[in-house]
Structures are given as structure tokens and as C-alpha cells.
């Protein structure tokens, strides 16, 4: 089974016409995110695998599975750096 990811419980999200703002109550930092990034963060309210996150993008955008997978991996890496994620090992 794959690793599962979940957004940090200290995050609060603001939807702002096509993109968004993420506020981290723990680190006291805030970030602007794209529409697709906001969609992924909404999905990450519950633990998700990379495959499930790729499906979130495929359901919303006309992109290839390869493009969606690359976007998800890049997004997760950015989130990891900014301490926006919790990670679970394989189950």
C-alpha cells in the first residue's frame, strides 16, 4: 500500500475565486495557493494516497495522468517543505 498524506490540522483555508490562501496556525505563516493546490488541500482533509490525489486533479482538469502525477508530487514536496502535511506510512 502507498503512503498516505493529510493536511496539517493547524491549517485554515480561504477560497478566493480561482485560488486561495492557506494559513498555518502553528507556524504563523500564510501562503497563496493555486486553484488546483487548493483543491488538493481540500481533499487532504482526510488521509489520501498519491493515486487518490492524482484522481482529484483528473476529475477537475483535462490533463494526462502523467501530468497530474507530476503536479501532485511537486505539490506534496512544496507542502512538506512548508510543514503543511502529516504523513502516514503504508498500511
Amino acid at each position, binding site marked *: 500500500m502507498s503512503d498516505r498524506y493529510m493536511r496539517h490540522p*493547524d491549517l485554515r483555508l480561504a*477560497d*478566493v475565486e480561482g*485560488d486561495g*490562501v492557506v*494559513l498555518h496556525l502553528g507556524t504563523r505563516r*500564510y501562503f497563496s495557493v493555486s486553484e488546483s493546490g487548493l483543491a488538493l488541500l481540500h481533499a487532504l482533509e482526510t488521509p489520501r494516497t498519491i493515486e487518490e490525489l492524482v484522481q482529484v486533479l483528473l476529475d477537475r482538469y483535462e490533463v494526462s495522468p502523467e501530468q497530474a502525477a507530476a503536479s501532485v508530487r511537486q505539490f506534496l514536496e512544496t507542502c512538506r517543505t512548508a510543514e503543511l502535511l502529516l504523513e502516514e506510512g503504508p498500511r
Partner: protein
Amino acid sequence: MTRSAIAVRCSDDEVRAALEEWLGGLRLAAPPGLALDVSIDAGPFAQLPDPVFEQPGVGFARGPNDRGIRISWSDFPADADIAGGARSAAVRLSPAAVAELDYCTRTFLLSVVIVLLRHVGWYHLHAATAIDPESRGWLVAGDAHAGKSTTAALLAAAGWQVGTDDIAFLEYRDDRVLVHTCHAPIALRDGGRRLLARAGGVALPDRGKTGFWPEDLGGVWTPLVLPEIVIFTTVGKDRTTAAAISRSAAVAELVRWSAWVILEPDLAQVHLDTLTRLTSQARCYRVTLGRDLFARPNRLIELVT
């Protein structure tokens, strides 16, 4: 004396009367049911273990399980506890704090009131408020050196209605964001006072400023503004300029100037939603304030309309 919507309960009649006079003078039209329960206490007063937020002289720590807030004053011993969702604050003032009660109200107790008001859906924003001659509501947001007070004084002198130069409270009600203000003098540094060519005023020695009531400057004080225009200001040189910004950029700016959003996790989302709604209601701009405004304050209107 105007009666405050925030009650004061204190066994010391002199302290209670002084605090009631201060709160009444703020003329805050806050929802009923809020109270300060004040006791005079020799201590001890413990240091905050892990402040989540600090401003000069005042620290804020979350209560157990991230609910509620403890506020501590470092200038003189005093603290306050506000339980999660509570409409009253348990305030302890040391005799030394009572001896500096006027200063205490402007720093520590004002912070207590700001946190208490969050519990009834009033969210503080560092912003000046005004209503222009065409009845449009304005917010001028920014830090302590962003020109908010000088702009507020300038607009008051130009006949605008002005609410506050810094202490604004956002409330989401009836599908719109309203901004409430308290009645407090516009606090000008010497530089702003010179540029406005204003003498007189009330000395605010602990802030190194001079206070002017909007009415003294030729304006009218307004307790309530429905913002149509939000500007985020910085001080420039000669010419005033304005550039429209995106809603997400505006939300990020509002978070910056409404830093209390991080205090209590239970309230953070609704606070953030209120800031976000404001950006759907108002047009938002970054404005560099120039000296040309002193000759033509209404140039601000020309730049954004």
C-alpha cells in the same frame, strides 16, 4: 458619560468607575453581554509559558486544549483569562498596574477587549476607516508606519467622516462585512503633525504622539463603515499611486494586518472567512502615499474610481 456595552464587575469602586468611564468613552456599539471581571491582586503573576502572539508589552498564550486565551502584561503585573467561547474576561490587576490605570487601559486592557470581542464575531484589523463625500466606505490598512493616522487626519480635515486611525473591528452580518470603530484620538507623530500643519492636540506621551479627535480636525466621527474600497498603504515620496490587487493578494494582506486570526484555533476559520468576504465586497488596492495628497486629499478617490 456614555454607557458601555461591556460591563465592568469589580469590588473596588474607584477602579470600576475608571474602567467604566474608559469603556464608555470608546463608544463601542458591541453586542450586549460582555464583561470584564476585574480583581485587584498582589500576585504572584506567572510569565506566559509559550506565547503564541506578542505585541509591545502584551503576550498571548492559548489555554488548555488550545481553547481560551491567557493575556499577560509585562510593563506592570497583570493578566487575564478568557475561556473558550466566554463572553467575560477574568482580569487580575496588581496594585502597580492599578496605579498606571490609564496606561493599562490603552495597552493591556484594550488587548483584553479585542480578544473578548472576537468571541462575539468582531475581528480586529489594524486599519483606519473613513467615509468619503460620495458615501463610500474606506479601509486603510497597514503597519505602524504605513501612514494610516496621517491619512485619517488628512481626510478628516478634508471633511470626510473618519472612524479610527488603527482600531477597526470587522463583523459579518446580513451577508456583508461591517466595520465598527471606537472613539479614540487620531495619533500623529511629529512628522505627520508638521505635514498637516496642525498645532494643539492631546499629548500621548507613552506613544510619543499627539492625539487629535476627528471633530477637532473638521471631520465627523463615524462608528460604522461599510467598506467599498480597501487600500494597503506604504509611505512614498512625492506622488501618490494606486494599483489594484487580486483578491488572494488582498486576503493575504488582511491576514497580515489582522494577526489575531491565529490566536484561537476554534475562531480562526470564521475570522479568515470574514477577511475573505471583505475582499468580495470591496475593491482592493496597494497605494503608495505621496506628499501630493496634502494638497489634494481627494486624489485618493480619483485613483481608485
